[in-house]
């Protein structure tokens, strides 16, 4: 039987399958973030007489954190370009930079949370506080996992002289995740910080 029908579909390789799987996982994760956004928006007025977002948020600090995270996406793009071009040393350098920027973002967030807590906004102080920490902290956990993932990719490149094309998908999968986490941050910046500052 040689004549295949017109609708014969190509069977996919592991790289394409994984990319698709990551997209689905991120779609599911979006619904999870949406639930936490809904929770935050429902409860953000419940400050229990304590400090509110408008009183606490420091947009300059948050802008710096945003800049750090968004530039990490740019750097990760450079890493992928180095990967495609077979420049392993540049790939390692850019990957390391991305992870460091991610780590810097987590550090800024930790400093931010500590300063809020010192000014009375502890986790269980009010429902606004709990919803804020749950949403923003959940995003921070995502960045932390992303840093671990990028670190593991860096270790992967260090154990071999060059990355074979059949391993490219490992980097593409991680980058999809990293860009997603960045996009979520843009929404958090707008909905939590800008809207919160506007009152």
């Amino acid at each position: 039987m040689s004549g295949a029908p017109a609708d014969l579909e190509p069977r996919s390789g592991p790289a394409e399958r994984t990319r698709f799987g990551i997209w689905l996982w991120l779609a599911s994760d979006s619904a999870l973030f949406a639930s936490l956004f809904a929770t935050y928006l429902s409860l953000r007025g419940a400050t229990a007489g304590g400090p509110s977002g408008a009183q606490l948020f420091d947009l300059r600090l948050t802008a710096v954190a945003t800049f750090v995270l968004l530039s990490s996406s740019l750097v990760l793009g450079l890493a992928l370009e180095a990967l495609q071009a077979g420049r392993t040393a540049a790939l390692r350098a850019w990957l390391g930079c991305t992870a460091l920027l991610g780590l810097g973002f987590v550090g800024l967030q930790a400093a931010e949370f500590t300063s809020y807590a010192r000014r009375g906004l502890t986790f269980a102080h009010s429902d606004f506080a709990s919803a804020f920490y749950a949403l923003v902290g959940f995003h921070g956990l995502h960045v932390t996992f992303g840093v671990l993932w990028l670190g593991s990719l860096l270790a992967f490149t260090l154990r071999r002289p060059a990355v074979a094309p059949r391993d490219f998908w490992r980097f593409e999968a991680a980058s999809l995740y990293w860009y997603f986490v960045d996009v979520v941050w843009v929404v958090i910046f707008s909905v939590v910080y800008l809207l919160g500052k506007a009152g």
Partner: protein
Amino acid sequence: MSALTHAPLGLGQPPVPASGLRAWLTTVDHKRIGILYMVSALGFFVLGGLEAFLIRLQLARPDSHLISAALFNQLFTMHGLTMIFLAVMPFSIGLINFIVPLQLGARDVAFPRLNAVSYWLFLSGGLILNSSWLLGGAPNAGWYNYAPLDTGGLLNPGPDPRGIDFYVLGLQVAGVGTVLSGVNFVVTILRLRAPGMSPLRMPLFVWTALITSVLIVFAFPPLTANLALLMLDRLFHTGFFDVGRGGMVLLWQQLFWMFGHPEVYILILPAFGAISEIVPVFSRKALFGYPAMVFAIVLIAFLAFMVWSHHMFTVGMGPLINSVFAASSMIIAVPTGVKIFNWVATLAGGRLRLDTPLLYAVGFLFTFVIGGTSGVMLAVPPADFQYSGSYFLVAHIHYVLVGGSLLALLAAIHYWFPKITGRLLDDRRGRWGFWLVFAGLNITFFPMHFLGLFGMPRRIDTYPPNLGFDTLNLISTIGVFVLGAGLLIALANMRRALRHGALAGPDPWDGRTLEWAVASPPPEYNFARIPLVRGRDALWVEKRYGDGHLVPAAGAEEEHAPEGFVHLPSPTPLPLVLAGGVTVLAYAAIYSALLVALAGAGIVVASIFLLMYDRDPGQLVPLAGDAP
């Protein structure tokens, strides 16, 4: 997470002998994982059945003191949780695991190792939840666990028992496994179909598996978020659901039902799929209105996300919101009706073969229509104010879950048992089982409609005599004995067939889809050569227009094992280790043990990265001599 990587020619290892406990603990084969799911689900089903049995014993007579009120609360909570999360849904997932890759003409699912992770997470979640019985008491706030019952205090005065913590962590762990299954099945179905299997040539069971998986991917996140918030309330004393501190009890309800209503379709769609496979085969004609059936499934899934608030008509959302959700709920009856009529039209004019699978399928049609009708009644808000919180609701949910999902899954068991085990079930015992189950479920659940209309509230542990509840409750309890006898006969029939059943051969029912073209039970590699699909009902097309054998698809193989071998992923203990780490983490959260939690997190992260970077050389499995 880990895809089957290409091994250079000849580098695969010899196959690991597939026997013993070790083979089951390390398997990544979709058929073995499917069997693990189904056997575990049956175990939990027996447990949930025993809980139901105790509930009905208590309610058989008025003023009964067989069971304390506190224990009764735990029993009905755990009965609902067990049947929904640990029996029906995982059984469907097991069936999808076993059957769908075969129906697609594929060797396995897209991510075999992730599949094993899903199973072990489900089992861990189920065991965590049930371990509460031994560790201070089971959850007792009902399966939907409304705030403020779930934050302690109201139901649990004094030192707060940990039952609800087991609810939170058990469901969370099992739920993560379920989401991973959903992702896995969507990729499998959209990417691993045999050449020629265009979407409108996919068997209906594959369609329902696909749509169910999409529902899982998008419906579980609100539950995950909800459980996480409740965990924070209980562990860190936040007040998300505490009105006294500005929190919202309705937040729990909204998020729960945003998950909970799609969940209803997650429970019923695979059952629809099985019925759509069985009815054509036993009517010996093609399914009537295939495109309409596909459209109906997609429409049901779409609407499933817009009706959640019909579970909350009585909480005071106002007439406008209630009306919108009433309308969207009633619209669901249209695509569901399309399916019912198409099944009936398939039966009409068919040369019916009234074997056990078809009996269950026809029984399903009757009882599911009753359950659907009471569903439309409940969708009318003014009427719902009367039905809400009464036994009418209990009757409805059991008609759709027992008369719907359970009957359809029993049909599916009787239909696919020969494929899964290679043995035929005894048809006479099967019929006895069917008639007792069918009679038993109607005797048990039909009187509950009237009990509800007469005013009996659900979830009461006993009732005074002479309120008009006595006789109907007694009848209902008698029904449980009939239902139980039928289920025991069905189980005994399976047990007997495993040893003494006649050999089934590849195609005992004159089947229409690809799974009936391979041996029973199928070889590890499913298909020696990936088949070419030349029409809807791929095997029937070959029987009708070809020589009855599948045509291999040229160039479909993506890896090139030596002649006479198939390259498959190797078994690995890592999924089990990962689930073990998650279990440690869950217990650490329940008992607030920080160091243990860190250890658990370490195991989890380490096994995730090991799974991601383990370059599996795969194993070379030799083809059987008479491979199709």
